[in-house]
């Protein structure tokens, strides 16, 4: 029996070395050594990895380019489609806002019946301020019916066909509307011009009119229903030797951007011409 051979010196030594290395590593004493040992390894691995990736890109590249081109085309088509949708939705939103405002107007004047119409053109002559709308006698429109927007008075129907109508704007040189000024409650006569400017005439001299006064239809003459807003007085011209005052006004309706209008269909204009005496009448 040999007692020396029974002791596993080799195992104990290796264990001690291992424990020592672990202790040294935990203490951070092996860091410079590991850095020196790992640096070439990391460099070699980086180099190999870079070459492998380059080869991979080279092998799979053409297929990806074709695929990306296809995807790009599809995305561009989708983008164009979405842009078209955005434009359509913006248009619909604009129309919705106008219609909503028109609905508010219709609720404010529940005694009238309305037919909505789109403005489809203007008169070809620069001397006349008329618009074409896409509703006609088939929709119940008749000559003389008042036309409004959510802001106020636009004009009245001048000519009607089956599916369209011609509307004379209050800015037309031959248009005349009897109006009332608020708060003075003075009666006046509104007339248009070739430049689409609106003036108020026949304001009595004893009435005080100031810029900012509201102008509404008076209903006199039977051509328009009363109390529809037209605009505001912007300036007054008064001379002592004149019989009447006159004033300029700013309409509330933007006549250059009319898109949708309402025609009041249950208002029948009154024809006063038979009551007006003529020189030949007895």
């Amino acid at each position, binding site marked *: 029996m040999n007692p020396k051979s029974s002791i596993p010196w080799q195992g104990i030594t290796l264990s001690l070395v291992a424990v020592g290395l672990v202790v040294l590593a935990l203490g951070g004493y092996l860091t410079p050594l590991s850095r020196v040992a790992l640096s070439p390894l990391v460099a070699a691995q980086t180099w190999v990895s870079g070459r492998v990736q380059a080869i991979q890109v080279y092998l799979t590249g053409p297929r990806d380019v074709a695929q990306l081109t296809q995807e790009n085309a599809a995305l561009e088509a989708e983008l164009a489609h979405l842009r078209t949708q955005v434009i359509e939705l913006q248009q619909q939103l604009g129309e919705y806002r106008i219609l909503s405002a028109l609905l508010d107007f219709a609720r404010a004047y529940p005694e009238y019946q309305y037919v909505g119409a789109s403005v489809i053109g203007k008169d070809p002559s620069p001397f*006349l301020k008329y618009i074409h709308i896409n509703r006609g006698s088939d929709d119940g429109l008749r000559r003389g019916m008042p036309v409004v927007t959510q802001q106020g008075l636009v004009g009245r129907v001048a000519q009607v066909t089956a599916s369209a109508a*011609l509307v*004379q704007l209050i800015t037309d040189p031959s248009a005349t509307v009897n109006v009332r000024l608020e708060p003075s409650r003075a009666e006046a006569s509104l007339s248009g011009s070739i430049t689409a400017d609106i003036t108020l005439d026949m304001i009595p001299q004893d009435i005080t009119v100031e810029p900012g006064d509201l102008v509404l239809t008076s209903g006199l003459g039977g051509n328009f229903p009363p109390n529809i807003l037209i605009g505001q007085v912007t300036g007054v011209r008064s001379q002592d030797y004149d019989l009447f005052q006159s004033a300029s006004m700013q309409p509330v309706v933007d006549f250059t951007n009319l898109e949708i209008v309402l025609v009041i269909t249950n208002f029948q204009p009154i024809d006063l011409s038979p009551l007006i005496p003529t020189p030949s009448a007895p």
Partner: protein
Amino acid sequence: MLPTLLALPIFAFLVILQSTIISNVPLLHGYADIVLLVIIAWALQERVQSAWQWGILGGFMVGFVSAMNFAIPMVIYTSITALALIIRRRIWQIPILAMFVVTLVGTLFSHSLSALVISIGGTDLPWLDTLQLITLPSLFLNILLAAPVYAIVRDFANWLHPEEIQI
């Protein structure tokens, strides 16, 4: 017969163009008259035989959509057609010059007659404002468009009436 038949859709298109686009692009308060320009350019083409038909049809179409008395556009456009035909015989060697001359005279005649009719109807028109704010800007736009309209109508007329080649 074919040029007269073609005039119907052409003037329908032109009247829509005038009513929807050109009327919305004013200079001051005047705008171009595309129907007038096309009628003049057509009447000035050498081989065209249907100038009167185009003038009458143009007047009819404009009279149909305008609030102006129906006869007024008819009188205006047929008179301008007559003027263009007279000018064509006089200065036939420089047709583009004739185009400018007839456009100038035609625009002034058209606006004068329209203003006169409106005045007779009882509307007070300030003549100086009418000239400055409507007639002169419209004249400028018509002169500006005269050359391109003439070129397009000439090409169309040449396509419709090709020159006969002697063999």
